[in-house]
């Protein structure tokens, strides 16, 4: 897109015959709305392009110095470890058939709680892009989950079915899951991206903690709207969302109940896909832009980082992650109602990201596991668990603000912040 400016008057090739290049058509200056549209288009495509570019980048570039040491590790150790982890994660639901498990492990590896872990891992990965990579505190993440779930509920025809079910008597045939229904995933992706742009483009210009409150407000507005509007069938919500199925030739997969292990595997494969995409993204130009914005927005803008566009890109990627998760959630649970999408869920996902370590992918996974499984395992102490959870958030923030598995870059930032702030404390006149 770089256009050379007008030729300088003192060109070295002045003596040449004056064959002028044909006068270039000067583009008419864009109107304000065209500029905005371009901004939005770039924001929506930047992330995808960067991920693809990374994936197909030429591999055989020269390696010198430290890279020579790191390369073997990258080539062998990391893929092996990743493969083993995925394999272990995939066989978890089968353990209870092979071994005699103690009660707490039974609860932890039941189809329901495992797929909940996978779902929250997906959400935590998405929110980690927003909070950890780009440094935007989003307290209304549940809104995108709700948008994905409601998109699925409406597009599968479950809404119309539920409406007739509630208004008419007699037996009504259950809607069947058609093959093309998998397109709903993409539709929800599109809707979530759209919602992300709509919510993000006005708000992302705000200061950090204002952004937190506004996103919180948006999360509540979505919930209140779903509660009050006839379009989403109000507080009762939409039920009878069909389970998905794949029936192509010899393949005959059917997801039957919400405890089905296949849901866990479906979600797990999405998690793996997302981890790959996000780590590529993190190392791309976009990822570096996010770091720059997070560390110093003004400096980033001065270096030519398109700040708002990059923020919207992060927001959109977070949104479409939640949208996809929302679709699978709706199909698994079969019911969506506004009561599910409370502020508490947003906080739960956020604390998964924070406990694990902001900006660290492994951290998000560990955080999601902790946030979902610990309450599941300690079910006997049901009424105490969120009290303890709140205290744990404070304790983590005081003693380990970088999280359990910190990202290296983020950790360095936090240390830098401490050195800077000590000046202030010294001025406070109190011994540290």
């Amino acid at each position, binding site marked *: 897109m770089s256009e050379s400016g007008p030729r300088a008057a003192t060109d070295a090739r002045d003596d040449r015959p004056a064959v002028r290049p044909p006068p270039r058509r000067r583009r008419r200056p864009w109107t304000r709305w065209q500029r905005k549209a371009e901004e939005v288009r770039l924001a929506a495509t930047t992330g995808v392009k960067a991920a693809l570019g990374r994936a197909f980048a030429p591999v055989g570039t020269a390696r010198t110095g430290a890279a020579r040491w790191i390369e073997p590790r990258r080539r062998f150790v990391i893929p092996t470890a990743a493969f083993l982890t995925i394999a272990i994660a995939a066989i978890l639901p089968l353990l209870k058939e092979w071994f005699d498990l103690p009660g707490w492990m039974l609860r932890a590896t039941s189809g329901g709680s495992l797929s909940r872990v996978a779902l929250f891992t997906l959400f935590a990965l998405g929110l980690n892009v927003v909070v950890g990579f780009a*440094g935007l*505190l989003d307290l209304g993440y549940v809104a995108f989950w709700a948008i994905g779930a409601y998109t699925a509920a409406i597009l599968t025809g479950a809404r119309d079915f539920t409406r007739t079910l509630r208004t008419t008597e007699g037996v009504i045939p259950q809607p069947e899951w058609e093959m093309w229904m998998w397109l709903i995933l993409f539709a929800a992706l599109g809707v979530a991206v759209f919602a992300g742009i709509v919510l993000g483009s*006005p*708000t992302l210009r*705000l*200061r*950090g*903690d*204002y952004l*937190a*409150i*506004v996103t*919180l*407000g*948006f999360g*509540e*507005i979505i919930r*209140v*709207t779903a*509660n*009050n509007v006839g379009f989403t069938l109000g507080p009762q919500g939409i039920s009878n969302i069909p389970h998905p199925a794949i029936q192509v030739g010899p393949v005959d997969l059917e997801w039957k109940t919400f405890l089905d292990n296949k849901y866990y595997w479906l979600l797990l494969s999405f998690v793996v896909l997302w981890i790959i995409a996000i780590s590529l993204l993190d190392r791309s130009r976009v990822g570096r832009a996010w770091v720059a914005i997070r560390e110093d927005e003004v400096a980033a803008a001065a270096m030519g980082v398109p700040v708002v566009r990059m923020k919207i890109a992060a927001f959109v990627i977070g949104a479409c992650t939640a949208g996809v998760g929302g679709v699978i959630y709706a199909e698994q649970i079969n019911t969506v109602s506004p009561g599910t999408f409370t*502020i508490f869920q947003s*906080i739960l996902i*956020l*604390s998964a990201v*924070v406990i694990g370590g*902001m900006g660290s992918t492994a951290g998000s996974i560990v955080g999601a596991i902790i946030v979902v499984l610990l309450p599941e395992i300690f079910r006997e102490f049901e*009424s*105490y668990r*969120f*009290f303890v*959870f*709140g*205290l*744990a*958030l*404070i304790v983590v*923030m*005081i003693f380990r*603000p970088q999280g359990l598995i910190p990202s290296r870059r983020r950790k360095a930032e*936090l240390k830098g*912040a*401490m050195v*800077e*702030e*000590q000046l*202030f*404390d010294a*001025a*406070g*006149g*109190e011994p*540290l």
Partner: protein
Amino acid sequence: MDGCFDSLVRQFWDQTVNGLTAGAIYAMIALGYTMVYGVLQLINFAHSEVFMVSTVVSLHALKEWFGVTGAIHGATLIFVFLGVLLAACLSSGVTALTIERFAYRPLRRRGAPRLSFLISAIGASLAIQYLFALMDGRHALLFWTLPNLQGPAPRQVPRFVQTEQLFSLFGTTVNNKHVLVVGVSLVMLFLLDRFVNVTRIGRGIRAVAQDPEAASMMGVNIDRVVVTTFFIGGVMAGAAGLLFLVFLGGSSHWQIGFILGIKAFSAAVLGGIGNIRGAMLGGILLGLAEKYGGSCFGTEWETAISFVVLVLVLLIKPSGLLGERVRT
């Protein structure tokens, strides 16, 4: 929605009186947000729980300490009201101090980034909420049985103030509750304004809000200022809690804080965060906007209206109506 304008016109003065009453309560809670923001530059997310504690404690004091079950009149009413007000203010002041001591001060000592403050405030908020949900007299924490204060179910408040029509204004009858809420909050807001603008410690608060480093060089004890700010914010929220319980709500609940907190925060932003008089103005305006909007679109949208106001203010004029007082 076709009757929107009609119903608004018909109920205009009714809704004005209601809006002023609600707005006075929002203003008192908003002060806690705005003062802490002025001094520490952070959103005290746990302030909503301070309000919740005050509603719970005032209900407990009313029922258990003063043994009120029905309507009371005259001097007894005044005595009971002041007693409960004292208990509510003290309890929520102490809650605010506890939050400051355990959730904020360790982080300030370490110079943590602002995100950590927000998350630890969310943690404190969760912990307090669920602690009060546990307080039904049957649960114990370690070796200490929790008192029977709240529990998971909402508790009803005895109707101890009888509604009396006092006078009529533009065809709307104003009752003693409206007058009492607005009166009490006006007195408290006036006292606070004088406190911040006249006294020595109030001068300290203003100094720290402007420039903490310079203030500490001039001999202002920053920690004392912060503690005072939290306590005052807590006391205001405490009074608001009692007023809310008796005149708007009617029952106490452990999750009551969240929605009121968001409304009050919107009010603080509307008036310009960090600006004390702005919070008062913002509270009143938000109360009015909410009631007008509620009569227009239906009361179930009242909550959404405050969010919409918040978003609009932040988009159009982020510094609020009276301008924010934020150090650069």
